């Protein structure tokens, strides 16, 4: 159009030039005709010159105009080609964009305000299992499951209310085959040139992420359930930052409401006051050394209940090089309870067994001894009657006394047999180290010491020479003294319960002492302390110390008791040193 105008204008310029040249020639001819063929020469000449000059000027002008027009035409031609090129490029670009739109691995939808699909890319349609043609003109709700259709509709409505603003959401679509496709949609409503409102939607497939999230959520749920069932909670603790993260079960166990993180001081508040210092020490050690830790402690709940928990922490180095602990804490209250009950049952059983065995033995001995004793008594009575007769029957009396002697000896034999029985177990003597035996006993009474809140102090002399003794019997003696000591301290409420076991060498023997700070030994009982069946305990048999003394005696030692300068009593026994080659 422009080009045509330009060409037209140039054409008119040429016409004007030609016209002016014709006019100039006409003027010259007129002048020549009017003035005659020989006018005054100069004026004529001037006119001719002027004519020629104007002709020349016209000619020159024409040449100039022609050149300019050619140049203009060249320019115009170049411009048309450029335009052609531009159109070509545009077409190419459109095809490329179309390509991008169609095959970009993102689903695009263009829907109108009513939700009718105006456009969808091939990739998107294919992702949903449709051909493009199957979706065009259809309601976009077709690709949403029934339960998501409401959300889809309201999402489009929101976009339409805020034209030009981008909105994004996650929604589940349904493929043609019915399978679910989770997408993240970015959408925006725009007004087209023809004033129609459309909504452009780009959808990114997040199905995998969604599945992973679901799997994670499920796995978390399983974990939480497993923790709840096993009464085991987990924790994370940054030693440097002091941040503590707990699982739900840990919160439940400690009786706190679930929170993103919890303070160390709050945790310590829950720890039983008696265990606080110990827990603090363990934690301090672990955080300063960066080593794994494991400890058991009690929790004092707000309602006064006591829980036993067992915690283990594994040290890991975090990204910034700081130490972090990951661990588990288990509620072992029920187990502890069972342990205590088991121990009680064992103790009771052991006691009953001991008493029963002892009772049976005593009954048996009593019967064995009683039989000849009854005979002796009856014979003695008969003998008196023989003697009381008038006259006394000395023959019968003599034979009766002989019977008495015989039965008396028989009773003695019974006693001998019992003693032999007791001695039979004392034949296992071997050189052994007293300190070892003491330590073995301590391991046996650990539970008693703890449950009776007894602090044990050991004063064992190093490098004691061995003694010749029966290990089991020696254990029995020490055990008996230790248990007596623990029991003696039970009624004491106003001072700490401390038990001291000491060993030392005293010339050619080893001295073992067991001291308590209990009720001590009343002066009137001191003499009978080691008698059989003598006891001040309501549940005691009164056999312990008596047996201990006979064992120590059998080892060539001596067991004695003495009151302490302070409260309590000390029991001590000696054992001769083992002489090489004396056995």
């Amino acid at each position, binding site marked *: 159009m422009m080009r045509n105008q330009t060409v037209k204008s140039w054409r008119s310029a040429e016409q004007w030039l030609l016209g002016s040249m014709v006019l100039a020639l006409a003027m010259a001819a007129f002048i020549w005709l009017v003035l005659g063929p020989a006018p005054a020469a100069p004026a004529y000449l001037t006119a001719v010159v002027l004519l020629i000059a104007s002709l020349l000027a016209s000619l020159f002008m024409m040449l100039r105009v022609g050149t300019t027009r050619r140049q203009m035409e060249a320019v115009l031609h170049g411009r048309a080609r450029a335009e052609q090129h531009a159109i070509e490029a545009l077409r190419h670009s459109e095809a490329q964009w179309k390509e991008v739109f169609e095959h970009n691995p993102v689903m695009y939808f263009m829907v109108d305000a009513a939700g009718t699909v105006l456009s969808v890319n091939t990739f998107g349609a294919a992702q949903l299992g449709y051909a493009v043609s199957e979706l065009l003109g259809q309601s976009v709700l077709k690709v949403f499951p029934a339960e998501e259709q409401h959300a889809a509709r309201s999402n489009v409505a929101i976009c339409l209310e805020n034209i030009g603003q981008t909105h994004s959401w996650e929604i589940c679509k349904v493929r043609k085959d019915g399978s679910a496709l989770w997408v993240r949609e970015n959408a925006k409503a725009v007004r087209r040139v023809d004033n129609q409102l459309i909504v452009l939607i780009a959808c990114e497939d997040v199905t995998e992420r969604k599945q992973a999230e679901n799997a994670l959520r499920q796995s978390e749920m399983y974990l939480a359930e497993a923790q709840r069932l096993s009464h085991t909670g987990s924790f994370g603790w940054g030693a440097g930052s002091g941040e503590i993260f707990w699982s739900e079960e840990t919160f439940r166990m400690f009786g706190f409401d679930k929170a993103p993180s919890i303070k160390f001081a709050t945790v310590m508040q829950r720890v039983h006051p008696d265990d606080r210092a110990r827990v603090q020490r363990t934690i301090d050690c672990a955080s300063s050394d960066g080593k794994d830790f494991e400890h058991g402690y009690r929790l004092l709940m707000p309602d006064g209940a006591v829980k036993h928990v067992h915690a283990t922490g594994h040290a890991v180095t975090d990204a910034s090089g700081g130490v972090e602990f990951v661990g588990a804490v288990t509620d072992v209250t029920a187990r502890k309870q069972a342990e205590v009950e088991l121990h009680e049952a064992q103790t009771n059983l052991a006691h009953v067994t001991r008493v029963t065995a002892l009772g049976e033995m005593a*009954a048996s001995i*009593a*019967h064995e001894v*009683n*039989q*000849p*004793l*009854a*005979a*002796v*008594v*009856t*014979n003695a*009575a*008969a*003998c008196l*009657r*023989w003697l009381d*007769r008038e006259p006394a*029957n000395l023959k*019968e009396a003599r034979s*009766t006394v002989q*019977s008495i002697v*015989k*039965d008396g000896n*028989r009773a003695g034999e019974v006693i001998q047999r019992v003693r032999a029985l007791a001695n039979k177990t004392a034949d296992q003597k071997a050189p052994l180290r007293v300190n070892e035996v003491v330590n073995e006993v301590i391991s046996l009474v650990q539970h008693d010491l703890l449950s009776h809140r007894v602090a044990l102090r050991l004063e064992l002399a190093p490098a004691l020479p061995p003694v010749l003794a029966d290990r089991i019997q020696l254990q029995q003696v020490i055990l008996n003294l230790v248990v007596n000591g623990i029991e003696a301290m039970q009624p004491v409420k106003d001072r700490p319960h401390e038990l001291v076991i000491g060993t030392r060498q005293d010339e050619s023997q080893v001295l073992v002492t067991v001291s308590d700070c209990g009720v001590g030994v009343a002066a009137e009982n001191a003499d009978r302390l080691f008698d059989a069946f003598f006891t001040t305990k309501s549940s005691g048999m009164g056999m312990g110390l008596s047996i201990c003394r006979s064992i120590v005696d059998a080892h060539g030692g001596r067991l004695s008791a003495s009151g302490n300068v302070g409260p309590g009593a000390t029991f001590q026994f000696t054992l001769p040193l083992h002489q090489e080659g004396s056995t």
Partner: protein
Amino acid sequence: MTGRPASPHTLASAEEPVVFVVDDDASMRDALSNLFRSVGLRVEVFGSAHEFLQSTLPNVASCLILDIRLPRLSGLDFQAELAKADIHIPIIFMTGHGDIPMTVRAMKAGAVDFLTKPFRDQDMLDAVTTAIERDRVSRDEARMLAGLHARFATLTPREREVMALVTTGLMNKQIAAQIGIAEITVKIHRGHIMRKMAAKSLPDLVRMAEMLGIGPASGGPQT
């Protein structure tokens, strides 16, 4: 050691009471034997219940001293067995360690005494005296009852009938009316009854009828 020591009282032979001792302990047997001999009691000792049952028991007042803790058959079971065999001999138990349930069981089953070893000799002798006396009484009663039964057996059926009615306190006339015989006949029967039963008086006859367990409804003794 089950020897039977010769009785120091040779004169009183058959009627002399005897003490039986059953104990598995020989010393105890000898001691008891010695004790009873020293007071002039006849004694026989046995080592087991079996031995005792094997021997023939003399028909004299006697008692049995039994250790409760016998091998195989316990004293209490032995007591039950004797009762079953209808041997009613007074028993004195001895035990090394008597407990209350055992004592109660023994006493309920008719034991005379329960002595714990070692016992006082006088306690044992007192128990034996009591037991023998009890046996003597029951033997006398049994003997008398046997005599009664023997005499009662000599009565004719009519005499038994009349005796039952007489001992309930009926007069001759009433008896005659009840059994449909003459009063004089009742009188004759009564005379025979008194003579055959060796009754000294009517009350004596009534006592005999009681011992025999004769009532007006029955024609014979209810034993």
